[in-house]
């Protein structure tokens, strides 16, 4: 088991390292000179050259690369070209709203998906199933940002029950925090919940047909107990894995939703940094996001390998 975990962690680290390398070179392939962008259109050639020198852009690419790699190993993601702030600090500054929305979105998705999926599987081909499946179909067919616009229109604009724009930290109170992230979280959570509900349904249906479920029923155990103790426990494994894999979808959703609600999060920072050719920030943001994504999945994987003795460690993928 320990060897398996070590192998997986090493593998994930290599993936992250390659991701970082690709990002470094890809970012430098973005057309546009950051020094020129920073100084504006009417800067003199000397001023631009001086700034390029200052930013270390005149050195050969491989020197820049190795310097950057060695800094990353020290946990230094560099300094923003635009604001002179450390990239890590900037990312921490915007992480809170993004994580809040993604987190609450995930909670909403799971709260909808799991009960709806179980009901759907148990009441297969009855009206409960059709309603739940229909709603989940609607959920996966709408762009999250559009759900955001509709919610904004109805709840903020017409009914005025929640504020329409911006973000308030939870340190200033849980209620205002929730009020600000409720709609964005719903907007990212609904499509994600739709996908998860379908997975819960099919996973649960499969489990319901397993021998141990039949045995449990034959033993005369209480139906509800069987469903939750034996059924859900086993059905949850693939659901949790898929929740991890779909994190990427969720993160993508958050970016567009942040724009709709005027929230200064990771997505906005990333898009603004691309417009400003702020290389260090783009690199940092992409690496951190990929890092979180890969390790979340690794964590989920190891977690369920350790809970489920049927899964073999080592061999194969």
């Amino acid at each position: 088991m320990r060897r398996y975990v070590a192998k997986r962690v090493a593998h994930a680290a290599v993936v992250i390292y390659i991701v970082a390398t690709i990002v470094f070179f890809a970012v430098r392939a973005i057309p546009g000179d950051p020094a020129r962008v920073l100084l504006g259109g009417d800067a003199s050639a000397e001023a631009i050259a001086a700034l390029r020198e200052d930013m270390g852009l005149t050195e050969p690419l491989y020197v820049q690369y190795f310097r950057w790699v060695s800094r990353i190993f020290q946990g230094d993601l560099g300094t923003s070209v635009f604001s002179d702030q450390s990239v890590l600090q900037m990312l921490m500054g915007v992480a809170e709203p993004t994580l809040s929305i993604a987190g609450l979105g995930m909670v909403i998705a799971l709260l909808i998906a799991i009960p709806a999926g179980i009901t759907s599987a148990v009441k297969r081909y009855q009206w409960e199933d059709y309603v739940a499946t229909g709603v989940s179909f609607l959920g996966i067919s709408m762009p999250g940002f559009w759900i955001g616009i509709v919610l904004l229109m109805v709840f903020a604009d017409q009914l005025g029950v929640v504020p329409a724009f911006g973000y308030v930290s939870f340190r200033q109170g849980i209620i205002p925090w929730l009020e600000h992230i409720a709609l964005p979280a719903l907007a990212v959570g609904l499509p994600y919940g739709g996908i998860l509900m379908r997975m819960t349904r099919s996973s649960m249906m499969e489990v319901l047909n397993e021998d141990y479920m039949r045995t449990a029923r034959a033993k005369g155990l209480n139906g509800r107990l069987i469903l939750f103790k034996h059924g859900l426990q086993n059905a949850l494994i693939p659901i949790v894995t898929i929740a991890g894999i779909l994190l990427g979808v969720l993160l993508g959703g958050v970016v567009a939703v942040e724009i709709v609600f005027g929230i200064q999060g990771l997505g906005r920072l990333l898009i603004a940094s691309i417009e400003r050719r702020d290389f260090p920030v783009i690199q940092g943001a992409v690496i951190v996001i990929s890092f979180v994504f890969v390790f979340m999945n690794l964590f989920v994987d190891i977690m369920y390998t350790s809970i489920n003795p049927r899964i073999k460690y080592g061999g194969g993928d």
Partner: protein
Amino acid sequence: MSVSELFKRTIGASGGGGKTFGVRSDLLERFGQTLSRDLRAKIGFSVVLLFGLAAVFAPMLAPYDPMAQEYGVLMAPDLTSAHPLGTDSFGRDLLARLMFGARISLAVGLGAVTFGAVLGILIGLVSGYYGGYVDDVLMRAVDVMWAFPWLLIAIMLVAIFGQGFWNVMVAVGFAYIDDFARLARGEVLSIREEEYTMAAKSVGLGDREIIFEEVFPNTVAPLIVQFTVFTARAILAESTLSFLGLGVKPTTPTWGALLGQGRGFITQAWWISIVPGIAIMVTVLGINLFGDALRDAFDVKETGET
């Protein structure tokens, strides 16, 4: 006749333990049956057909030039007469813009998935068939692709190569390569051990013949289902990019761009954002319904990767 077909006819074995079907003709038959029997397939197919036709014939059918500005009817909610779906903030007819937008949105969606499918399936077939070192290298590459959330890849690719029809198509499609590669590889691994593959090898067929004549046709059912589901997703992805201003071109009407333009006017003219959103939803819903019917018809298990 391929070896797998021969096997099916002589022994009546269904390749892949009932998961896939031995031959292509069988698949087409199923396709037709699904379309004539399954309500979901009927609805889904009709919706997609309707939007597809509207897109293809937009230049003939659209009531106005999508770029023509009419200053007398800025943001008109004129839902009855001249502009059935109203006009936008420049007085441009929304129905016409929607129809022209369908051209881009549907073409990018289909093209993106085709791009991802062709590359991904090739990688998966080669990786699964040869195994060993080739498999290791290709699958590590796929792992790296997988580690980038799709929107990041798309944003970076558009930033590097610029906006434009083909670039956006590739940017959206890139994210599907790894999914198709994994699926194709998994299918190949299960088929590689099938008797007809061994038989093909033993009668002296070359690797390429075996891959394309024997293995690929037998992986088709799950790949078709994946293709359908991903087309729905690609249309959503394109609309997200356009909405963020990273789509085909800011001035081109696409569904996502129309939605984005209307966002600032929600209080005065809600329909500018709502109508394109409904178009996206109905189309994607149609494709998803169709895909779901196919999934049942082909008996393909739903996996989390899709």
